[in-house]
């Protein structure tokens, strides 16, 4: 057909491509852009504090912190919670006039955008905040995949990024220097639950060896959960046996086949990692099928009001859960202050989402104050060295470098009672109730 012509055309195309690629600018181009220093950038109605490069010694009139959150889209419910946490932190700080940086008090402002639960949007909005709005630092968005994508933008632009929204260890395993996370890894969640289970096993309340059915949502969160359990089981040398290890897709509908596999396996412990809708769906099908296990857990889910409403108190009784924080920790000290302030502002009790977002903001504030400047490098170093009194279990927040700057602290384990409560049963120093194992409901057969 047109073979020769085609050959000529493709030859020409290839040649021009090679020629052109040889002279793409930016090959010599080294560093990325300077923040907000180039002409033609359209500030979107923000008060950019001027080019960082020039004002090394000066402080801006106002410190601007950028953030995006999923305010619409699949994660909008929790995105809204994080917004509440952030806003409370900013409000409380500004009540005193702002941050004490050096010898000045500078007010601080949050520039919050909606990333609609979309990774690409989260990244480009972060870039916009950094390069056009000229923010001094970023607070993270919510949900692991968004954080994992967005944190790259912060790292590339060398801006401190503090987040309470991404717990997967894969985020912090990349050797990034500018990304800090105050959510302890999910593997620790699994480990904490297994530790309590081990105590029960040693007390003779659970069989030895105990058979475990692990069912996990196929996300980073679920994978880490499964890994935490398998690692613990391996280390325990024979006290446990994993008889089911299956993942499922988010927003599943019919778990009947999966549940019948679990039932057929004869497991003693049913350990699941799921989001709220799957928790409700699966637990409903579980109870309807008349299933029962000595220990039931849905990872970080358990005491949610929505679940109680959908399943009834009996339907969620004795379910174990482990979270990063719980309002019952707020008996005294800064915890109590936080709970009081939150309840005063929002007229409801805070949950862990509020606490971690609040703490992420507070960590950033503390770092800026300790650094005595808004220079990115200084703030980053302050974050790396941070040791802050904290709401989070353990009482102190640090970002250890060995863990990729992801905070490590124990989780609080709760268990639902048939009366509708959910006391903390572990660790002992935070416990407000006694855990029960094996599950009394199963004794009825």
């Amino acid at each position, binding site marked *: 057909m047109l073979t020769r012509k085609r050959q000529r055309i493709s030859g020409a195309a290839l040649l021009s491509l090679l020629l052109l690629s040889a002279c793409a600018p930016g090959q010599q181009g080294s560093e990325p852009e300077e923040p907000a220093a180039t002409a033609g950038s359209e500030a979107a109605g923000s008060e950019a504090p001027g080019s960082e490069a020039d004002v090394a010694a000066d402080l801006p009139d106002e410190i601007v912190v950028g953030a995006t959150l999923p305010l619409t889209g699949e994660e909008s419910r929790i995105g809204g919670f994080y917004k509440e946490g952030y806003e409370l932190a900013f409000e409380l700080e500004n009540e005193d006039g702002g941050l004490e940086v050096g010898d000045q008090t500078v007010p601080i402002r949050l520039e919050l955008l909606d990333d609609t639960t979309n990774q690409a949007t989260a990244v480009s909005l972060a870039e*916009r905040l950094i390069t056009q709005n000229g923010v001094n630092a970023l607070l993270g968005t919510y949900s692991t995949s968004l954080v994992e994508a967005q944190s790259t933008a912060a790292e590339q632009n060398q801006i401190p990024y503090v987040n309470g929204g991404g717990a997967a260890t894969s985020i912090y395993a990349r050797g990034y220097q500018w990304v800090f996370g105050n959510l302890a890894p999910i593997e620790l969640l699994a480990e904490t639950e297994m530790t309590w289970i081990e105590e029960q096993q040693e007390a003779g309340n659970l069989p030895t060896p105990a058979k475990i059915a692990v069912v996990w949502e196929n996300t980073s969160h679920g994978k880490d959960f499964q890994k935490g359990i398998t690692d613990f089981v391996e280390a325990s040398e024979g006290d446990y046996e994993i008889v089911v290890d299956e993942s499922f897709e988010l927003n599943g509908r019919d778990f009947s086949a999966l549940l019948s596999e679990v039932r057929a396996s004869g497991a003693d412990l049913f350990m699941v990692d799921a989001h709220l809708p799957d928790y409700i769906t699966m637990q409903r099908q579980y109870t309807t099928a008349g299933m029962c296990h000595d220990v039931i857990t849905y990872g970080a889910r358990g005491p949610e009001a929505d679940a109680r409403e959908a399943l009834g108190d009996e339907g969620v009784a004795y379910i174990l859960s482990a979270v990063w924080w719980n309002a019952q920790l707020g008996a005294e000290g800064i915890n109590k202050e936080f709970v009081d302030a939150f309840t005063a502002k929002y007229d409801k009790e805070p949950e862990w989402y509020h606490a971690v977002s609040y703490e992420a903001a507070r960590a950033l504030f503390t770092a800026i104050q300790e650094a005595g400047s808004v220079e990115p490098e200084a703030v980053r170093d302050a974050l790396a060295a941070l040791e802050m009194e904290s709401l989070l279990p353990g009482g102190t927040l640090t970002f250890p470098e060995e863990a990729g700057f992801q905070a490590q602290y124990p989780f609080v384990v709760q268990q639902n009672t048939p009366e509708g409560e959910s006391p903390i049963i572990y660790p002992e120093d935070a416990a407000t109730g006694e855990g029960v194992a094996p599950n009394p409901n199963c004794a009825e057969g």
Partner: protein
Amino acid sequence: MRTLRQRLPEWLTPWALVAFLGGLGALYVAPLVLGTGAYLHNLMGLTFMFVAGALAWNWVGGYVGQISFGHAAMFGVGGFVSARILLATGMPFVVGWIVGGLVAGLFALLWGHPTLRLRGPYFAIATIGVGEATRLIMTYWEPFTGGASGVSLPIQGGVNKYSLYWYGLYFMAAAVAVSYYLRKSRIGLGLLAIKSDVEAAGDVGVSATYYQDLMLFLSGTFVGIAGAFYASYFSFIEPGDMFGFQRSISFVLMTVIGGIGTILGPALGAVIFVILQEFLIASYPELYLGMYGGLIILIILFEPLGLSGLLVRIARRAGYRPRGQVAGGGVGSAAAGGPAATSEAETTPHMVEEKT
């Protein structure tokens, strides 16, 4: 002494060549001359990639006339293959992109060859099946995609994000050039013939299978390269985002809104898509789904040729007369406007192409 017109291959007009080189040159120097901020600069690079991807989708959607709701499969395959290659070897990223694209193209051929026989919406439904099955299998195939955790590319030593603008530009230029060539050349004629009457085309030696496979392969390859670009741009990809239904839909949206079957159309659609995404969504995030939906409804009902068709109509009103019917344009067609008459075999889905 032959004139320029005589030197060029028959499908390439001097006007088109000048426009092409001129546009390319202008976009090449724009950032250097205008000094745009980093945000806009990067955004434009990404837009170039979307334009190329939309154009590539259009080769199957518009030129062949088969709507695909599963192009995310190639996008993802290209992205992950490229990412894996770049991680495993130290090759220049362009190589990774091209290999990723070719693998994606082959993948497209694998599922596309048997399914392209299907006519009407059955092909579209099949592509939905392919897209979703690919997503699920890839999410499960952890060694390749990293499972739900995805794959991260290193930032240092990776591609310089600043220069991605120009690579995106070349990529887009290539896609435009290929689009133009496919439309104006004998291949375009062949496609027209197939759309009008498959059997008659076969009688004169125009093999539907060959042409469709070629289109699918090219489309898959370019969309795969787009995926590879995306991976290098964000330095992090994960299967849910790359292979998701949303991703597939975005190609359809861009091309339909812009104008299916043309060159200007997908380009315009991609630009609008990015603009909507970045700027309107920031102001009215609660309405973006409705905006897309509303746009599509309006376009299907009133201007099936999309926004580019609208522009042509306006231009016509203003007195601009398009040059006569060029080979490859205007399939069985009404002029711009209105659902086209369906004189062909009832089984052929019909997309009207604009005259240049």
